[in-house]
């Protein structure tokens, strides 16, 4: 855990992901499946977020956010497909996905999409 914590503090995105992947391997050896999956998912998330930032308009930040926040931000910037993809990739429960989308659409006052949704 100490090792992982140090990694999470790291400024360098690549190092963060490396640490997570190594931690994931470590948990695999420890036969801790839950921790293995969660660290691997986090490494994937950071990679996806880095890509999202590349394609994003200025001022949009994704890197280091939680999955829920990432989905919210994607809905806020009208990238509904990407939002849905993240949700399925990380097994976000449908119920939660609806909540996030509902709240974000309400925040946008996008009543049309809200109606359709």
């Amino acid at each position, binding site marked *: *855990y100490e090792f*992982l*914590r140090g990694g*999470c*503090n790291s400024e360098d995105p690549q190092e963060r992901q490396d640490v997570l992947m190594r931690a994931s391997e470590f948990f695999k050896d420890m036969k801790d499946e*839950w921790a293995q999956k*969660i660290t691997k998912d*986090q490494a994937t*998330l950071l990679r996806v977020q880095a890509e999202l930032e590349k394609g994003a308009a200025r001022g949009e930040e994704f890197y*280091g*956010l*939680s*999955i*829920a*926040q990432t989905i919210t931000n994607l809905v806020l910037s009208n990238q509904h497909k990407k939002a849905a993809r993240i949700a399925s990739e*990380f097994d*976000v*429960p449908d*119920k*939660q996905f609806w*909540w*996030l989308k509902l*709240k974000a659409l309400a925040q946008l006052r996008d009543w049309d999409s809200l109606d359709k949704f």
Partner: protein
Amino acid sequence: GVSNLANSVINLTALREATRTELINLLDQLQGKKVLVLDPALTGPLGLIIEVATLKEHGVERICPLTPEPLVTDCRNVMYILRPRAPLVRMVADHVHAHEAGPPPGKEYSLVFVPRRTFVCDQVLEAEGIWGSLKLQELHLDLVPLDEDVLSLEVEGVFRDCFLDGDYSALHGVARALMKLQNVFGVIPNIRGKGNCSRIVANMLMRMRRELSAEAAAALPQAPEIDSLILIDRDVDLVTPLLSQLTYEGLIDETLGIKCGYVDLDPEIVADPKAQQQHVPGKRVKTPLNSNDRLYAEIRDANFSTLGPLLNRRARELDEGFKERHAAQTVSEIRDFMRKLGGLQAEHNSLRIHTNVAERISQTTRSAAFLRRLEAEQSMVAAGASSTSFEFIEECIHRGEPLLRVLRLACLFSVINGGIKSAQFRQLKRELLHTYGFELLFTLANLERAGLLRKQEGSSNWSKLQKQLNLVVEDVDEANPQDIAYVFSGYAPLSVRLAQQAIKGKWRNIDEALRALPGATIDETQADPRGDGSVPKGSVKLVFFIGGATFAEVSALRWWAKQEDGLDVVIGTTKLINGDSLIDSLVERVE
């Protein structure tokens, strides 16, 4: 202002005066003008023993908080007052080094540790090379009287130290503070308690008493004023602090935050619309909450649902009081009325403030989120943690409700259920990380180690405990309570049930429950060191919570003591806490 302590069952004023005199002596040792640099954690406790005006009378020119920023001052004398924590000592060292680099003349430094110096701090000073250039002193401010029946060490993080990190150094502080009480009020004949930390403290106390020099022992008061000490580890009862408090004082703490007997209120709440005096907009007003305020003393322990009628009745009584002026005819009648007027106005002022505060709180307690949460908590306490409760917690996560609230509920589920089933536990943790971020992983690990949120091992003993200790009481009348369960509208705090049995000397009646709870059970008697078997003068019981107490528990004990003839209870704790602050102390912050 600060509680006047005049009605306390033990002489707490003497305790406060002793510390005050100690501080004044320290100040007077530094001749001339001085700057006082305070550890921010100590401003609250120090404010309860001394006023700023008195500090000024003793040469204090400026008071500033201890920060990493360099200290700029022309003053030759600088006094630091701080908790013995290494990072703080390093800040002081940085200040000193910065001054040394500057032009002479040199300064005189006094470093005052509260309540005691520690070896670690000495080491830091030595490593920084300034050990010889400072005057090292101590201010033995241990138990601060927050009110006439509440004493607190006001030390942060004892729960974390003891129940997460296994660092028991804080317990030494607890024992020293209790020993100091014994020096003033006599050796406490009975010590009962529950929990491993309580065991350690009880052992330390008995050892310290045995090691007293003959001289010190002879100086002990003849007849003890406190007859029993009840020690309770916070981890013996984790359910109570996790529940939403429903008493008025408890709700003020949960919604507005009480710090060291004061609450910061918005100016609109405090301001008298008719008065000329203007409060700076946006600047919060520090308002005392203690028994000096007669109205507050009457309503603080009440269940919030009964507060409306209570305030209403008071308002009508006050009105009657003011109307007496019409009846006053003769000069002496008018003089009598004028004498009462001050009191009436003070109470009128307090009534206005508390009506506003209650209004603010009811915005929370009326909200659907609060009511649903309360329903979930109450069903868990009464009927155990069900799948419905679990779904409710998941829903709270999905809605992204405030982290501490969600963790509090999840921990409650786990504690009552004796842990969470493996698959559910993994699912819950994953959803928490998805919603609140991966860094929460470290906090979850802490909660797991502290036994608050963990995988199920064995079966839950909650329903047994609940019956053995009569924790759930049906048909509670909050307006006219018959049992301490009124504080949680039907749940009697486990910790207070233990205290009740311990005070009555009926530990044996609840043998089974005691065995089901974690940690050692303590039942000791202390002989007076002079061995003359003098009869206790008082029958005061001191109930001390190691790792924090909630206002709801204080209220329950206070209410109970009022019902029983000849029972006086004083409550001690390392800190007043609530569920949010308890969980927050275990949150791991990743920068």
